[in-house]
């Protein structure tokens, strides 16, 4: 049973998604409980899986009984187990939240919930895949369902969904092109196998070209500046219930896929035509972190502020994972987990503000603090974590990245973390100045906010502090895994 956990994690949402049109054809009201139930089972399985992996070490899962170079293998190591738990927990959170926020005039709940479950299944697939082509397949499943979910509300969102589709497909094409280069040069797609053949081939043009294409393709998926064009529009116009789910998963999971490739294929300190590869990646991350924060500072639309904030954080995580030492790598990955929760929470808040107050821009926010104490409390908590104050998880992630940067003596990375922190503080101050502004005509009666919304915001806020408190053990698990040669 224990050794089958990875595939069960994938099959639970997948089978439920496929069976949904049959099970719910007569009773549409079953869709939501069924979806929530399936994702809850996933969370339980992910916790069990994490326990097994931490105590017994990584599992290599050979699908169909065919082992690695010949068959398709899944790798269930601490990174995958932690990410699987993060992804399923965040999905559950956004599903609880989506109870009130979904606004649809006609009933398409079967299609909607099927897409959500397929999306979640694809995330699990990306996390476990240990094979470049398998990553591509699941990336595409996640992307295709993502496009449909962004456009699920109809209207203007369709334009942004189409734009996302064009750019996302372009990214997927680049990724596949890169994979085919790597396959041509090395004759294998399995990451462990690639890693053994890579050192002597890293200077070959085909391999370098392949890696560049893979990185470019994944940078579109992870919305790394300057390839972030699809993200703000898509997230700002996606349905309220969908934006948190996508914002907290899509870009992070693409980054996780890149971390696997980067960690197993690019050795620290390696140079291609006198360019140190990791330092180049780190500089790209620095740029993305600073520019993303700066762009967030000049937005007036709330969802766009959060979207650019998330783009900046992707840069920050890329800095962490590219510094070439395990402290920074563990810090970056830990920050990634935090960022998933923070993005979910930010977009839940933005959605709730839109749903209850009809507010989309900063000016609409005036006086909200009096009327919605729950949303205000959640915003303060998430702001504390975004800026990176202890005892929230955001602080420990940034702290480890800074420690790693100092260890590697890359002061530019330290600057990036500090600049990103200050910029985050800047746009939150802007937000707060409107949020806590007292209008002349005070409507002081409080709004009744649905229980599910309070619940999801509450859980997310607790999770922020819980991640901060557990940061030590999570980082230690990641460090141990790195010391044993895995990611």
């Amino acid at each position, binding site marked *: 049973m224990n050794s089958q956990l990875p595939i069960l994690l994938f099959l639970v949402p997948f*089978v439920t998604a496929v069976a949904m049109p049959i099970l719910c054809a007569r009773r549409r009201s079953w869709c939501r409980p069924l979806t929530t139930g399936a994702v809850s089972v996933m969370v339980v399985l992910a916790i069990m899986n994490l326990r097994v992996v931490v105590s017994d070490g990584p599992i290599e899962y050979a699908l169909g*009984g065919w082992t690695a170079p010949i068959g398709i293998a899944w790798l269930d190591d601490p990174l995958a187990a932690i990410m699987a738990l993060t992804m399923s927990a965040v999905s559950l959170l956004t599903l609880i939240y989506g109870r009130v926020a979904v606004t649809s005039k006609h009933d398409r709940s079967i299609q909607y919930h099927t897409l959500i479950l397929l999306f979640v299944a694809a995330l699990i697939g990306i996390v476990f895949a240990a094979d470049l082509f398998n990553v591509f397949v699941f990336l595409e499943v996640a992307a295709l369902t993502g496009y449909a979910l962004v456009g699920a509300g109809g209207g203007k969102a369709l334009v942004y969904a189409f734009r996302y589709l064009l750019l996302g497909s372009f990214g997927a094409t680049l990724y596949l092109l890169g994979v085919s280069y790597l396959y041509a040069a090395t004759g294998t797609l399995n990451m462990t196998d690639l890693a053994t053949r890579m050192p002597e081939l890293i200077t070959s043009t085909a391999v370098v070209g392949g890696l560049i294409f893979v990185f470019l393709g994944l940078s579109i998926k992870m919305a790394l500046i300057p390839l972030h064009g699809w993200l703000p529009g898509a997230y700002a116009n996606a349905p309220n219930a969908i934006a948190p789910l996508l914002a907290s998963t899509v870009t992070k999971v693409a980054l996780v896929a890149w971390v696997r490739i980067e960690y197993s294929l690019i050795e620290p300190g390696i140079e291609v035509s006198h360019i140190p590869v990791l330092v180049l990646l780190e500089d790209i991350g620095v740029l993305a972190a600073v520019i993303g924060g700066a762009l967030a500072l000049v937005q007036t639309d709330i969802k766009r502020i959060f979207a650019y904030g998330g783009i900046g954080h992707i840069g920050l995580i890329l800095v962490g994972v590219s510094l070439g030492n395990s402290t920074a790598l563990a810090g970056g990955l830990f920050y990634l987990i935090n960022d998933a929760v923070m993005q979910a929470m930010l977009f839940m808040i933005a959605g709730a503000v839109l749903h209850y107050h009809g507010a989309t821009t900063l000016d609409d926010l005036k006086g909200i603090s009096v009327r919605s104490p729950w949303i205000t409390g959640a915003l303060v908590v998430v702001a504390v974590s975004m800026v990176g104050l202890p005892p929230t998880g955001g602080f420990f992630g940034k702290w480890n990245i800074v420690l790693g940067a100092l260890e590697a003596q890359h002061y530019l990375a330290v600057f990036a973390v500090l600049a990103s922190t200050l910029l985050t503080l800047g746009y939150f101050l802007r937000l707060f100045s409107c949020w806590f502004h007292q209008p002349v005509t005070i409507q002081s009666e409080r709004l009744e906010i649905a229980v599910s919304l309070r619940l999801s915001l509450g859980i997310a806020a607790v999770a922020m502090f819980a991640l901060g408190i557990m940061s030590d053990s999570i980082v230690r698990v990641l460090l141990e895994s790195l010391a044993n040669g895995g990611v």
Partner: protein
Amino acid sequence: MIQAHDSVIVRTLGRIVIPVAQLFGIYVLVFGQHGPGGGFVGGVILAASMILAILIFGRDAPDSWLVPKVLHGDGLGLLIFVGVGGLCLIGGGQFLNYSHLEIPGLDDASRHYVGILMTQFGVAADVAVTGVSIAVSLSADDEDEEATHG
């Protein structure tokens, strides 16, 4: 919306060709064990035969009785596929490891044979349904046009 074809020649030929095509589709599906063919190709041929039926007789004609039923079955093929894989899981092996497909009275080779054949049936069913539903949705009037804009 596709109208039924009124030519006698087309209708009569359709009556002859469609069953043959379906038989051929099933043959290709089963023959996939021994040569070129298999679930995907068999499914495409089955889908083509049903699309032909829609084109000739119209979607709602009694002669195309299979079509509306088939459209409800999307996902059934995948469930067959996952079901076979799940039986292997229950048997103690990995997903789709046919050696662990617990069917009493079968040796290892026959387990592989039965397992692959059943998954291919699943694949064929899904490909066929997807093909038909693409054809139907391309030809259908946009039913929720008003619902979307109204």
